[in-house]
């Protein structure tokens, strides 16, 4: 087995354990590269059928290309799509144009997402978190419990080894299931390349710049790059020392921004 084969096998195992353990399961889907790798793995885990809904938290600040991708992929993958927007916050006038980045990000992503979770009573969410994304994520578990207040108690996490996970939740709690935890950004691209997984062309360089990570368009900036296809992206990532989320402004708004966001329930 190659390195990618091993990662894939472990992810499929996690998908199947999650589907067995939780009756109210959902997979948030951002249409980004990691999200699309998750869809692909789910198709493989369940032999062509994705037996749970996917959730798109629509901030209304999505790139038009991503919305086009959504419409196409729903049919292509035969998805049970649920779309959720924090309309109440929009009605209060929460806007990137007028409010600070962390507030908007919190309201339109995290709060919207909490609303959807409460409404649908999900007890487990499959997310595309990777350990290499950020130092705070390095400490995650494959099955990571969250309290009823959406808090992640990263100081006292359950032991997890030998393919045995935390699969019991109390009322109101949920578990984040993270099949991509061991993958790196480079692994994700190599897998997209190997498998032929559809992705948005926003990741490819135009005029010396490309998006490495995609969020809301007002706060997502491209990074300098000439990588205009997957081969070139893979080559670029082998040598770069620029961090993946360098173009995501909310990460840099405060010294420990990611930690603050995550403790509040950000994915």
């Amino acid at each position: 087995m190659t390195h990618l084969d091993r990662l894939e096998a472990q992810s499929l195992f996690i998908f199947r354990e999650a589907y067995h353990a939780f009756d109210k399961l959902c997979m948030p889907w951002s249409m980004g590269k990691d999200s699309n790798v998750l869809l692909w793995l789910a198709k493989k885990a369940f032999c062509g059928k994705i037996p749970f809904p996917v959730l798109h938290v629509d901030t209304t600040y999505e790139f038009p290309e991503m919305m086009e991708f959504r419409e196409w992929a729903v049919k292509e993958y035969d998805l049970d799509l649920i779309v959720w927007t924090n309309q109440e916050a929009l009605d209060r006038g929460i806007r990137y144009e007028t409010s600070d980045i962390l507030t908007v990000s919190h309201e339109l992503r995290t709060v919207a997402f909490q609303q959807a979770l409460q409404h649908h009573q999900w007890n487990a969410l499959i997310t595309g978190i990777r350990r290499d994304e950020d130092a705070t994520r390095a400490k995650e578990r494959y099955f990571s419990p969250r309290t009823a207040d959406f808090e992640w108690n990263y100081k006292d996490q359950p032991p997890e080894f030998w393919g045995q996970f935390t699969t019991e939740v109390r009322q109101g709690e949920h578990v984040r299931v993270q099949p991509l935890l061991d993958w790196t950004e480079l692994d994700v691209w190599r897998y997209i390349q190997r498998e032929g997984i559809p992705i948005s062309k926003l990741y490819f360089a135009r005029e010396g710049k490309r998006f490495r990570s995609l969020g809301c368009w007002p706060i997502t900036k491209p990074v300098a790059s000439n990588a205009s296809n997957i081969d070139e992206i893979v080559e670029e990532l082998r040598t770069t020392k620029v961090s993946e989320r360098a173009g995501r402004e909310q990460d840099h708004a405060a010294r420990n921004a990611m930690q603050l966001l995550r403790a509040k329930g950000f994915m």
Partner: protein
Amino acid sequence: MLPESIFVQPRGTASEREIAAREPEKLKLVVVGHVDHGKSTLIGRLLFDTDAIPHGKAESIRKACEAEGMEFEYAFLLDALLEEQEQNITIDTTQIHFAAGERHYVIIDAPGHKEFVKNMMTGAAHAEAAILIVDAHEGVQEQSRRHGYLLSMLGIRQVILAVNKMDLVDYSQARFDAVIAEFAEFLRPLGVTPTHCVPISARNGHNLTTPSARTPWYTGPSILQALDSFVPRPSGEELPLRFVLQDIYRFDERRILAGRIEAGTLRVGDELVFWPDRKRSRVKSIEHWNAAKAPEKVMAGESAAITLTEQIFVERGQVAAHAGHGPAEAREFHARVFWLDHTPLALDQPLTLRLCTQEVEARVIAVQRVLDSSTMEVVNEPRTEIRRYEVGEVILRARRPLAFDNADYVPVTGRFVLMHGRQIGGGGVIYGTTYEQENLPGVKSDNLSWTTGEITREGRVRHFGHHGAVVWLTGLSGAGKSTLAVALEQALFQRGVAAFVLDGDNLRHGLCRDLAFSPEDRAENIRRAGEAAKLMAEAGLVVISALISPYAAERDKVRSICDAAGVLFCEVYINASLETCERRDPKQLYKKARAGEIKGFTGIDSPYEPPTRPEIELCTGEQSVEESLGVLLESVLKSAAKTPAKT
């Protein structure tokens, strides 16, 4: 039609082999040792020396240290979380990637603080090699021993013993030799022999990437050279097949068995024996979504999905093996266990044991040896518990038979965890079990009384491990009720479920011998059968009734008797056409009825009212007995596991 904004890498632009060749080999490495012996410094220094630190990070930490008037610490490179820097200890496992030459590494930084053994286990369980670090000055300490022991339990055999802080002992060969001699003596009985022993100074970078001039007496490899000699953990393809089931999927017309090949190789056409049931079937296909060509085989480590030629009943937790190369099957076994929870692991305490996807109630029935948590030496006084961070040798007894292996034979199916509440409380590895011939009869389930005092309904449920229930089979004579009832009883019994068949004919010999076959007598017959079934279900049994019970109203009456008592009632319609039943005619009753020798025979001159909404309907004319039994068994096991609705 693919929109313009979407890209799909065309298949075949790079051959599979080319892509695979470009994938670097990755070795998972754990760094363990006593607190403050220099793990984080070693890792920080390795990252720095292999140019793996993100741009500006080392520089910003250097500046921060200067501002605080502190000496630069390589360990700070790792301490990404704010509170870690405050406490100056690594609070949890982290994973760090670096490359040296062609080899890529993932370092699992396992913390040394005693409180964090659970995190150390979480991280180290994935490792293929280990660096065990010991302070040359302080020598072997408590955590050095504990981590050494845990490495042996995890089966990690590629170990570098790094004797750090050689600068503090003036790079003394005598001190180095003394430390490794002391540690080797401790590790030897555990089956751990360090592959390399390297004298280092992590802070000053000696013997990390290249051999150092400060230790001219040392002729062995540097840390990086030693790492380069290690191989990724063998995948287990050469071991006997262990395909452990995770789930059965029926999303479409396929009935798919999903699981992971934990050892060995599985091929299309193979005959499989499913343990602990020992049912047999052949592999019809290996399912693989989006594969250009359906795979012919799957190997150890792969997640697999297969279909079978015969639809036998299989379930999550079962282990498929090749005939003649099966796992062991037993309810009792010896194990070495380690315990992580605050509450000790106590003798006779019922716990949930998970071994791969098998889950069963089990308890420790004997504590044979305990190693003290700090000295890691054998505790002399007899003990009835294993406390936090202790390791011990015990005998475990499970409520029903498990399929497993000795850990030194097939590691993955030879280890288990014990749940404490909803968390993992500890784990263990199995040793010393004798393998039996698979053609011998299976291990019998029995039920142990673990409760005392007043026997409540909950007490009965705990005692039997399941709820009582009434499974009511109804259908024409010859539809297959008795056959299925008997088969179900046996299958349930094998799984430790106390089951009993209430047979119509037998009832009429005793309890109902005053009754004939008039509609009134038939109704009374059903009522008595229903009351008897309810009583037995209340006593804790899963009662399988096999009566024609032709009238819907009478069956509904039984349902309400059960509902009123809070007993789960499950109506099963054994549906076979009159023609089918008459053709089967096992007791020659239809023949006699047609000949007029029997009057009022259901289906001939007496009506049968099919259930309108049975819990289960089985078409025995079209399904094999195995298929029907599979559906029935699955549903009954699920029902018996859950609480009936309160009325």
